[in-house]
């Protein structure tokens, strides 16, 4: 509940200016409007002020002011999470962490990077290249200006997810400021000076992953790095039937040999080639394209992996499914330079982010490999009924233990009817994915009730108790997990 002070502004802005200085507290209408919304259909809320802290002590000071005024605080860096998670509460404070942007360590021995919240994927890639280019991380299909830390806390995915799991699993530990100003350090770093692993103590790091900014403001995060292989190539595998595609997905994951097998359905390919709103799949056109990443230390290893990929394709062809031979991504780029957006991550997918309507949203969900077909079939049905093409991003995760199905839509953000259409679609789509055993990640606030209804009551109650323990006043990003 907002105080009168928070609703009207009162002296909060003045107190923030007195503490941080006028250059790091912004209250003008135009800037506040920029922070009020994102690319999604989620309801905009205008903050009272935006504050740019530069240290842990400043975050503690900000939270002290917020506590006293009972004013909500929402953390943010790029605001591109496509879940409405960085949209503040009306009249709240945005804690813009983009100026806390140091890479504090690249630990070559234990293979991790220690980053502050404002460090972007572009920054990290540059730093790793400068440090000898011996490590890789799980670059997401997101613009380079997005936050590494935010992506990890929201359990996103990337180019090495098929091998090592979603981003939350890459985190060795965090430092966070709780609502009462307590600073906590989790993982191995809670005892050791080295952030070498998540365990072996109770997993407090989990208190900050997928909690969507409701349990603390994370100020440092240790992210696992992996050795960079000497050779790497990406091929595109066109598949013509959905069932064959998912079978291929399962088989490729179980080989344990490939880094990535990201599938993009035909509307994504058409949009990449400049078609704003694809209207239908042409006869005999591939249903989905898999981007398969192969890495190796020797040419012999690379050749062996290529042979195993070819063998896997032969195996699904033998079941009667139609697959084209793998296409070299460089040949596709030569034919159509737009394809370069798929070759080097992080990337700005202009056909999605800069689409003419300005709206981008999705329901992305993790779930069983065994129900991929069911989720896709039923999801596409709902999308078609609401007039959207079956734009899907899918991949096996962590060696095929689970999968991601992300149903993506672009829309006209300025058109209330189109926004209403998206909301109606998502209200149905979330039930479809849940029915198939899938669970949305980066959970938009509007979909929280649907998930909570199906959650084990004990787990739901425990979540509430955890929240009460770390943020009794409910000032941290309220409403984002139903509390």
């Amino acid at each position: 509940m907002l105080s009168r002070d928070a609703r009207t502004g009162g002296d909060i802005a003045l107190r923030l200016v007195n503490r941080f200085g006028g250059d790091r507290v912004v209250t003008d209408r135009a800037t506040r409007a920029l922070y009020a919304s994102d690319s999604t259909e989620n309801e905009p809320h205008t903050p009272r002020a935006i504050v740019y802290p530069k240290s842990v002590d400043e975050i503690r000071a900000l939270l002290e002011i917020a506590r006293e005024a009972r004013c909500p605080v929402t953390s943010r860096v790029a605001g591109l999470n496509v879940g409405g998670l960085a949209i503040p509460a009306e009249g709240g404070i945005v804690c813009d962490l983009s100026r806390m942007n140091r890479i504090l360590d690249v630990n070559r021995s234990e293979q991790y990077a220690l980053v502050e919240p404002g460090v972007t994927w572009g920054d990290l890639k540059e730093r790793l290249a400068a440090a000898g280019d011996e490590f890789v991380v799980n670059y997401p299909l997101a613009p380079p200006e997005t936050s590494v830390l935010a992506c990890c806390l929201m359990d996103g995915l990337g180019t090495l997810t098929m091998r090592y799991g979603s981003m939350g699993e890459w985190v060795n530990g965090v430092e966070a400021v709780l609502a009462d100003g307590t600073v906590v350090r989790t993982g191995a770093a809670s005892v050791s000076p080295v952030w070498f692993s998540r365990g072996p103590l109770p997993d407090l790091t989990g208190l900050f992953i997928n909690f969507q900014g409701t349990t603390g403001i994370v100020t440092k995060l240790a992210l696992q790095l992996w050795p960079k292989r000497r050779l790497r190539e990406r091929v595109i595998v066109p598949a013509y039937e959905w069932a064959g595609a998912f079978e291929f997905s399962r088989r490729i994951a179980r080989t344990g040999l490939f880094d990535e097998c990201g599938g993009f359905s035909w509307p994504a390919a058409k949009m990449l080639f400049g078609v704003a709103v694809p209207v239908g799949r042409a006869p005999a056109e591939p249903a989905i394209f898999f981007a398969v990443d192969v890495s190796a230390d020797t040419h012999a290893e690379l050749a062996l992996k290529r042979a195993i990929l070819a063998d896997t394709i032969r195996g699904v062809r033998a079941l009667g499914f139609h697959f084209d031979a793998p296409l070299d991504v460089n040949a596709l780029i030569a034919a159509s330079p737009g394809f370069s957006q798929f070759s080097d991550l992080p990337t700005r997918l202009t056909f999605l982010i800069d689409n003419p309507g300005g709206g981008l949203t999705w329901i992305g969900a993790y779930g069983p490999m065994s129900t991929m077909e069911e989720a896709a079939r039923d999801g596409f049905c709902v999308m078609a009924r609401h007039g959207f093409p079956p734009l899907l991003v899918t991949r096996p995760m962590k060696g095929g233990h689970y999968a991601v199905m992300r149903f993506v839509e672009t829309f006209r953000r300025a058109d209330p009817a189109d926004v209403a259409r998206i909301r109606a679609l998502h209200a149905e789509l979330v039930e479809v994915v849940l029915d198939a055993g899938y669970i949305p990640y980066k959970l938009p606030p509007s979909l929280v009730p649907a998930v909570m209804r199906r959650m084990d009551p004990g787990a739901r109650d425990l979540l509430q108790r955890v929240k009460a323990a770390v943020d009794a006043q409910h000032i941290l990003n309220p409403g984002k997990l139903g509390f």
Partner: protein
Amino acid sequence: MQVVIRDEPSMNLLGLLLRTRLENATGPIEGEVEVVAGAMHVALRFRGDAVEVMRGDSRTGEPPKHRARIEGTLSALLDCARGRGVVRNFVTRAIRVGGDPRLLFRFARALGTL
């Protein structure tokens, strides 16, 4: 070359893939060429320095009668469009051609394949 895609929202991926190559092609060319990759068909109608790209099935209206035809796997066509593996793809019949050889020659030269 000026490229016009007829009914772009429903154009198949082969037509969309060819667009950039055709934009960089140099004319003039006159005539109709059919390109086939797997089961995807595209009809190209060249008129001087312009080309119209149509789907080679009935959805976008009757495609023109072609004077030349190129057929192959998507992979082989992409290779040839980059000027790579042309001989190999012909010898292994990954690419097959038919029809007016002069038009085929001009088409290949315009795309930079030869």
